[in-house]
């Protein structure tokens, strides 16, 4: 074996030095090339492991956050809005009835408040991030004020005092001016998070980088083995073969897991959260119009602002091209909630017809009959028709919510263990490369 010292006579070193220190940079010799290859392959394997683990981690945390944070938060925000808006309309109609409120109306109000409080509690537990905190704080602070004012109104009503109506107006103003906007804000915030986390879970940048690195590693491994086979006249190197197998396994696992997650989360969005969002928009509009109907009957002032709001909101609600119900039905088309969404499209005109009869009664001076239609449960009553529309929308939301949940969970589970698996396989690859090349290197020493 050639020694470096002898090549440098000027240094005056005698030949007794024998074995030279290991050449570090002489890449032109075979051992030099081997050492260079060893270092390069180990670095590339570890780089692949890092990039693959990063990609897996990004996708898994996005999918996990969708399932455990933003989706429940969106659902809770929607439930809070629904129950508060219904409480507002129910409290108004309890007052409309005059005298002691009907028991069913009182129970409905109490159930709404209990649902709002439960969902608020759940949302507060779920929302770890700061963005939803101001809305949650507003809801938590104002809900007891609202219920206090409603109970004051109820107590004054029982004493026959007109002061009760003032407390009811104050409570309704708090609901419409503070509580409902906060609930809407919470819901919208959760949907923004949901979209961001979905795209993090299904986005391509990290996966593409990982694949580029995988191709580079594969090329180098392949050429290294071919070069080694020619140079050493041996067909296979066990270490490099192991590294190649581990590499192929890790690439296949990553590609399959991310593809499955992407498809599942795409379905969760397309057949789940997108229709739910469109249906929830329609439901919110329907609830607002319903509250307008009750408040028009209470506000006997000849001022038609609530009725004007009813007209504007129901125009947005539809059905008809470009309306919320049309958007909801088309988003829900082919999904589990499709049938109920279609029923809602025909339920809305039925309610509007009952509402027109109610308005005709009220405008014709038959106020108590109009009130009976608003609060009644007969098949022609406006109250019944609204509840049919509301329950159609509610059922389609629940059905699509379930679809979302199952797809999103499958998507999250597809990436389970992926990050750890990528790290482990990359370490195996690096170890295989190191073992295989050290074996060859030893033959030169």
């Amino acid at each position, binding site marked *: 074996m050639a020694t470096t010292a002898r090549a440098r006579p000027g240094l005056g070193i005698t030949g007794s030095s024998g074995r030279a220190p290991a050449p570090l940079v002489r890449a032109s010799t075979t051992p030099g090339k081997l050492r260079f290859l060893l270092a390069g392959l180990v670095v590339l394997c570890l780089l692949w492991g890092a990039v693959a683990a990063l990609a897996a981690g990004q996708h898994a945390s996005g999918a996990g956050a969708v399932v455990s944070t933003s989706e429940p938060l969106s659902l809770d925000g929607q439930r809070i809005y629904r129950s508060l808006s219904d409480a507002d309309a129910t409290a108004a109609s309890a007052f409309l009835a*005059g005298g002691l409120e009907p028991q069913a109306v009182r129970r409905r109000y109490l159930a709404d408040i209990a649902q709002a409080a439960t969902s608020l509690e759940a949302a507060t537990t779920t929302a770890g991030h700061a963005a939803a905190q101001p809305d949650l704080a507003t809801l938590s602070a104002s809900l007891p004020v609202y219920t206090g004012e409603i109970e004051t109104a109820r107590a004054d009503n029982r004493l026959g005092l007109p002061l009760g*109506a003032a407390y009811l107006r*104050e409570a*309704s*103003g708090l609901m419409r001016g503070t509580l409902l906007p906060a609930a809407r804000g919470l819901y919208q915030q959760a949907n923004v998070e949901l979209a961001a986390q979905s795209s993090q879970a299904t986005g391509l940048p990290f996966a593409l980088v990982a694949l580029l690195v995988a191709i580079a590693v594969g090329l180098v491994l392949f050429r290294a083995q071919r070069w080694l086979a020619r140079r050493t006249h041996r067909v296979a190197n066990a270490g490099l073969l192991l590294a190649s197998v581990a590499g192929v396994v890790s690439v296949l696992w990553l590609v399959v897991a991310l593809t499955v997650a992407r498809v599942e989360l795409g379905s969760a969005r397309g057949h789940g959260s997108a229709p739910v969002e469109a249906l929830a928009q329609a439901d919110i509009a329907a609830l607002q119009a319903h509250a307008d109907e009750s408040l028009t009957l209470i506000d006997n002032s000849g*001022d038609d602002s*609530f009725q004007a709001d009813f007209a504007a909101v129901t125009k947005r609600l539809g059905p008809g091209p470009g309306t919320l119900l049309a958007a909801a039905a088309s988003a829900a088309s082919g999904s589990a909630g499709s049938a109920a969404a279609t029923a809602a499209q025909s339920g809305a005109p039925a309610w509007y017809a009952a509402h027109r009869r109610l308005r005709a009664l009220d405008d014709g001076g038959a106020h*108590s009959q109009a009130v009976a239609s608003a609060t009644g449960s007969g098949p022609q009553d406006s109250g019944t028709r609204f509840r049919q529309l509301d329950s159609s929308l509610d059922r389609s939301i629940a059905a699509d919510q379930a679809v979302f949940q199952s797809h999103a969970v499958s998507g999250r589970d597809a990436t389970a263990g992926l990050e750890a698996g990528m790290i482990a396989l990359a370490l195996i690859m690096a170890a295989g490369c190191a073992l295989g090349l050290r074996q060859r290197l030893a033959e030169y020493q």
Partner: protein
Amino acid sequence: MRTRGWLIGALAAGTIAAAVLAAGPARSAPAGSAAPAGSAGLAGSRSAAGPRGARVKLPLPFDNSCHPEASLRPPAGAPRVTAGSDMARIRARGYLIAGVSESEYHQGFLNPLTGQIEGFDIDAVHQVAQAIFGDPGKVRFVSLTDAGRIPALRSGAVDIVAQSMTINCARLRQIDFSAVYFNDGQRVLVLKNSAVKGIADLSRQRVCATAGSTSVVDIKAANPAAIPVAVPYFTDCLVLLQQNQVAAVSTDGSILAGLAAQDPETQVVGPLFTIEPHGIGISQQNPDLVRFVNAVLARWIAGGGWAVSYDRWISAPAPAPPVAQYKD
């Protein structure tokens, strides 16, 4: 949207009020010259010692430059619906449309137990319906805010307004009035634990009245240092008073008595500092309706029905009824 708007405004105002109240303790030394709480009639002096000795000018109580209390003379005899008159038009419609309050306890209020609108003003409306239809029940009540009364009359949305409405020269330029059917004057309602004894003690404090009422103007006229807070209904003022967002409510004594009846922890204090003759508001387009309503009121007062209603809703025994004055 109006209701929502003011409620949001009231909440915001309440927050500001709380901040203002927190910033500095309310100064409310009792005013030396304030008349005792029960005294009727105008305070003798035109000024009173305000907080920290400031002189607070009491306003001229009543602008009578145009003889506002004089209305159109009714035809002799019982009220009659003549052909082609406003009354004939209303009779053809089938019901009278009356703008009233749903929130002025004992004047005009929606009784939550019965769902009916009741009160002294409402009795007057039933008298008019009785005279047109022979049936006191043929009325459609439209609940108005105080600010909504004149627009409702001018647009023709209502035939008459019976809602504690003060007759004055400014309003007579826009609408017409019946003869006086109730005499009132402005006072102050406070919590029983308040040191305020009258309008003079309310400098730099928030005092509530309804938007579009004479009361909200007269607060500033009686005590320029007071801070008027305008809301749609007087019951809203009581809500604000109960929540400590205002220091007092100031309006006609009869309305304040109605508020005090709803909360035993409040009381009416101080002298009357304005004169407020109430009339039934009618559009200037309908002079024959003005004469007709005056005939109805004259019959109601002369027949003793007025006193019965006064005893029932306001206080018993009823005082001597107002003497109708006519300008023609």
